[in-house]
């Protein structure tokens, strides 16, 4: 693996170089907004025109994840036209521009593999070209976290704040204001070649490892979260009282699922105007009551807490069983953005407690 060093102050120049090489460059930026006293500063991953106002490495996480650049919010999958009483299907031409997403946080980068497990042909041989082709043309430049906020819990799901999973080119911030650059894939190498004028010598692996360990301490961790899967596997826990008790405050909006970098559910509808129309694939949420509603009126998940149970099970069991992938990357967006503070880590802690009782409880001195 090749490494290099980059001055932190040169990130803007890096972005400029990439833009000049005719790539679509996406990086976190502060979002301009109407002046308002209630305003909060919001980072968004945005396509850049130049490297001036980037916020790479700033803040905890951009509001949106890389998800919306791979599994886009809405897109046509088919066009059709009714001509002379006959239906003609037309192909839709998607453009998959070569894209570099710069400054992706490790949790977001790790989520790409989960989405890919669903959309690629790994899943029953059906390949969703709209996702996979976009992914083929996307290079991910990750940027390690140095700290987390109260909602971050990546270390509880087996990730680290300096993890390079899903990364093509991995940057780690070192205390001396330089960046340790690791080239992970050929795509990352191509980006590194463009950035070559700014890269210096080899990276300091020891300093990078120290920085990673330091960051690891700054993200809170849930004990024994590995017990969750086994607990969910136990059929008798499906009707545990916990689900309703914790879930009854859920109001059934889709904020957590739409913000989630691994949530992949979508809906398909037809939209027409005149004789032409499009079949559209767009984000949907398992938290909506009509998501599973049968035409007969029967609803397998008829209560909100059951829908949240499905979400939790999806993250910690279904993803593993069905897609052999990680369901939750611990980015904490669902916690930050929940209007009623329904916290997935509370479920995790509760399950952890239930699963580890009675043995571990008395043996672990750290247990609260």
């Amino acid at each position, binding site marked *: 693996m090749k490494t290099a060093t980059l001055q932190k102050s040169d990130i803007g120049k890096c972005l400029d170089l990439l833009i000049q090489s005719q790539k679509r460059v996406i990086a976190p930026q502060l979002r301009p907004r109407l002046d308002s006293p209630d305003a909060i500063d919001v980072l968004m991953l945005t396509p850049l025109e130049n490297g001036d106002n980037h916020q790479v490495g700033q803040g905890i996480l951009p509001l949106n994840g890389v998800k919306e650049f791979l599994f886009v919010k809405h897109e046509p999958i088919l066009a059709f036209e009714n001509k002379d009483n006959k239906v003609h299907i037309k192909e839709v031409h998607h453009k998959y521009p070569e894209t570099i997403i710069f400054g992706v946080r490790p949790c977001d980068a790790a989520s790409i593999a989960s989405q890919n497990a669903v959309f690629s042909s790994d899943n029953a041989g059906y390949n969703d070209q709209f996702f996979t082709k976009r992914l083929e043309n996307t290079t991910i430049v990750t940027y390690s976290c140095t700290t987390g906020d109260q909602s971050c819990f990546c270390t509880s799901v087996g990730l680290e704040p300096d993890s390079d999973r899903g990364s093509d080119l991995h940057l780690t911030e070192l205390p001396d204001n330089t960046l340790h650059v690791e080239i992970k894939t050929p795509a990352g190498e191509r980006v590194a070649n463009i950035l070559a004028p700014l890269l210096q010598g080899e990276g300091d692996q020891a300093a990078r490892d120290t920085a990673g360990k330091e960051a690891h301490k700054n993200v809170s961790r849930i004990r024994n979260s590995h017990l969750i899967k086994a607990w969910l596997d136990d059929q008798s826990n499906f009707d545990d009282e916990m689900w309703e008790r914790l879930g009854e405050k859920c109001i059934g909006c889709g904020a957590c699922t739409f913000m989630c970098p691994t949530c992949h559910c979508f809906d398909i509808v037809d*939209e027409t105007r005149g004789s032409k129309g499009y079949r559209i694939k767009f984000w949907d949420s398992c938290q909506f009551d009509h998501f599973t509603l049968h035409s007969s009126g029967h609803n397998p998940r008829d209560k909100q807490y059951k829908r949240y149970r499905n979400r939790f099970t999806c993250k910690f069991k279904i993803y593993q069983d069905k897609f052999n992938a990680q369901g939750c990357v611990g980015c904490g967006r669902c916690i930050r*953005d929940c209007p009623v503070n329904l916290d997935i880590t509370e479920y995790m802690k509760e399950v952890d407690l239930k699963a580890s009782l009675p043995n571990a409880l008395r043996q672990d001195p750290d247990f609260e």
Partner: protein
Amino acid sequence: MIEAIRTQARNLLENKEVDVIIGYAEGSDSTRTTPVFIRKPEEVSRLIFDPRCINSLPLYLNKRHEYPQKGWKRTGIIAKGCDIRAITQLIAENQLTREEVYIIGVPCDGVVSHFSKWDGRLHDGNQATKCAECDVHTPTDCDFFPGERPEVDRSAPYKVSAPQVLNLMGLNTDKRFDYWRQEFDRCFKCYACREVCPHCSCNICITDRTQPNWVDQAAHTKGVFAWHITRAMHLVGRCTGCGECTRACPMDIQVDLFNQRLKDVVQESFGYKSGYSQDEKPPLITYKTDDSEDFIQ
């Protein structure tokens, strides 16, 4: 104050006067609070109240029918002045009868505009704008009030809109369109604005209906425009200005500006302020023969 509320809550539960008390409890981290459903007298110590208690709890009153097996008949609710306005409005719309709720009013000095801004105390820098013009810091219609209830002066003149609304109104029409187009570009229709709204009480929302399909379901800008216009129109004269829709928006779109603008329209044109009377009809289900018609040919 909170001790008085807890004591009252315990009494209510012990005497079976209410089946559940909806209140606030400590959230998952120190800056947050969370709605909580208290069913047992021994749990009342979880109840708290401070400026972090942003949520508008009356929205759960709409969802009370989802819990019939729990015998949820009469609901106790901890309500700020603005929440009581929401309840009053629900009663005026026959969504609720006054007897179904037991309102524990709490005096409120204001709440923070966003959890992330909480630094241990409330100040001008983090107070929600709605609280600056609030005239119900001391709640009006409640069954229980901790301590002596002071006389409330509600003679203050009606204040027009938040500054953002005026800013937007100052732009020309095309600029305003572009502003919303840019904002709505982020909307992915998670419907958090709908679900947190105490007044969005329909069992099945018009956007979820497909026959006919009035609002496109996909989150392209056309569909998003249609959704937000529809939402604002359905809240004309009903919105009590809690601002939850904007706070809940994960994409940080200020959707409540529509409601604030229409609040002004309703006040200026029909002299109606929502959430102050259980008997007065909301403006769009009534009329006066001499209503303004200067826009009509």
